[in-house]
């Protein structure tokens, strides 16, 4: 177990480095000069130079990258160009909001997706299968933010079961937290649960045709045992392999769904940063998101290794 984690961790180091280079170089390519952006047409030549010096823009790109990386490694993502707020604190303040949405929607997507996928795979071409497959196909075609709008119209505005907007931190009230994240998470998780259902179904159908399933049945093991122990363990291997991708999708989707529910998360931060071309903020956001994805990937890699003995380091 420890070896497995260490092994995976090591494999993720190049990924993080490359992401940091990409992030840094992309955002450094911004067409407009940040000094002009901040000061506009006002300010003297001297003020411009001073700001340039203060922002460290006179250093060569490589030096700036390593300075940025070094600070980032210590948790300092720089300062916003516009309101002199620390990027780290701005991001950390909103992180729990976006994480709540991502986490709850991932939970919904996995539970609904796996259950529907298994049900469909057990009886291929039955009505259950058709219903699940059709549902999954439609689910993948619905934009999450539109589904959010409809959920708000029905369950918040008309029925008043849930709040239409806003977010309550879990520390304030777990119950209110749950009420505030339920609708956004359902909206967000719909298409992922559809995608997971399709993957589980096809993996399960494939596994059920394997020799070892037939061999397990030939030993007289009960159908339930064959399906849930022998088939599901193997069917989950390819599903887990793409799970971190699904969670990445959810994280991205959260940025948009937040707007529907007027939730002040990373999405709002990102949109504002784009409009203002706030480089440090964008860099920080990308890096934090990648860090999140990397943690998720590490977790799924470990689960993958536990499920698939062939993937364990020898």
């Amino acid at each position, binding site marked *: 177990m420890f070896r497995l984690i260490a092994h995976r961790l*090591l*494999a993720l180091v190049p990924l993080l480095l490359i992401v940091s280079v990409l992030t840094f170089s992309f955002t450094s390519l911004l067409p407009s000069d940040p000094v002009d952006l901040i000061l506009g047409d006002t300010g003297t030549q001297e003020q411009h130079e001073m700001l340039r010096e203060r922002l460290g823009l006179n250093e060569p790109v490589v030096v700036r990258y390593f300075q940025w990386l070094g600070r980032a490694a210590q948790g300092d993502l720089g300062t916003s160009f516009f309101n002199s707020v620390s990027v780290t604190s701005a991001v950390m303040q909103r992180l729990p909001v976006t994480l709540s949405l991502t986490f709850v929607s991932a939970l919904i997507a996995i539970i609904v997706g796996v259950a529907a996928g298994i049900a469909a795979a057990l009886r291929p071409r039955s009505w259950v299968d058709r219903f699940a497959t059709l549902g999954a196909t439609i689910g993948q075609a619905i934009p999450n933010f539109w589904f959010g709008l409809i959920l708000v119209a029905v369950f918040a505005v008309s029925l008043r079961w849930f709040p239409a907007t806003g977010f309550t931190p879990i520390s304030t009230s777990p119950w209110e937290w749950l009420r505030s994240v339920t609708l956004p998470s359902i909206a967000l998780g719909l298409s992922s649960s559809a995608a997971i259902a399709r993957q589980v179904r096809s993996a399960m159908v494939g596994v059920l045709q394997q020799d070892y399933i037939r061999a397990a049945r030939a030993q007289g093991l009960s159908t339930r045992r064959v399906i849930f122990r022998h088939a599901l363990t193997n069917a989950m291997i390819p599903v887990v392999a793409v799970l971190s991708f699904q969670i990445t999708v959810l994280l991205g989707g959260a940025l948009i769904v937040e707007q529907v529910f007027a939730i002040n998360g990373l999405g709002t931060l990102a949109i504002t940063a784009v409009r203002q071309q706030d480089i440090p903020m964008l860099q920080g956001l990308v890096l934090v998101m990648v860090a999140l994805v990397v943690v998720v990937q590490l977790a799924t890699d470990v689960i993958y290794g536990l499920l698939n003995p062939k993937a364990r380091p020898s």
Partner: protein
Amino acid sequence: MTDRPLLEINDLWVTYWGRSLLGLSGRPFHAVKGANLSIRPGETLGLVGESGSGKSSIANTVLGLVPAAGGSMRFGDEDLAGMGTRYPSNVRKQIQAVFQDPYSSLNPSMTVEEIVTEPLRVHTTMGRSERRQRAVELLELVSLSREHLERHPHQFSGGQRQRIAIASALALQPRLIVLDEPVSALDVSTQNQIINLLYERRDALGIAYLLIAHDLALVHHISDRIAVMYLGHIVEEGPSDRVYRRPAHPYTKALLDAVPLLDPQAQRARRAARKAAPAIDAPRVSTTGCPYQNRCPHVMPRCQTEMPPAYAVDGGGTASCFLHADRPAVLPASGTGKAA
């Protein structure tokens, strides 16, 4: 037949490198450890061994699909080992192949005509009609006909597909065809059709075959000489009949004894003999010496430390076994040229 070999392999090494975590080179695995072989024009050499013996690695190296890690391979006047996997056209034309699985060896998106004439397009300037003419001739050589030209591989049975593969291999009139388990994927009742076809074509066109197979009995039918491989080493080599009837290496003997006989009575007697034979002691773990020492009933202390050289054997050929140490050594011990 002339005495000048068509293909001469000396101290051939084939090595695969495992990949480690970061994509850097890992540990080497030596699939072939210093093999010596030669094939004369028009001759058939059967290369026999179990899975993992390195026989397919030799085939792939001769075909230029895998580079040789050491040693030499002379084909006529050309040094194949020096060319790596980039054979020039004049060499490629002369060495063709038929692979084991006729279901995956034919491109499913091409028609039979395209498959059979693919070598002609690559190596000749023949026009379309000329190629079609040649395709018909080739199909007729393998007992198929003009009507099959437009069809796709999935419309044929395994035996017919193998005929198509043979037609394609014959297209350039090569001097050597590597046959990698050409019938083992076929039904018993169609296997012999293909063997007969290969045999007829060889005699008519004077092609040499390097026949890779796991079945000694089958190889015996159509080979002039047989070489036996075990764990990357060629342990015995010699005229087909001699190797089949009077195997000199204990491994060859074990291989022959393991092939079930069609006679139930003889088979019963053999099983009784096997049971009566004393069990071989628990495997000795030794990285030096003869590769077969762990399974050999005749193992001697010497086998654990020294790699036996190839000794001459009565009736022709060689065996790398100290049981024949009274005879002159023809070749130095294989696998000693490099540290394994």
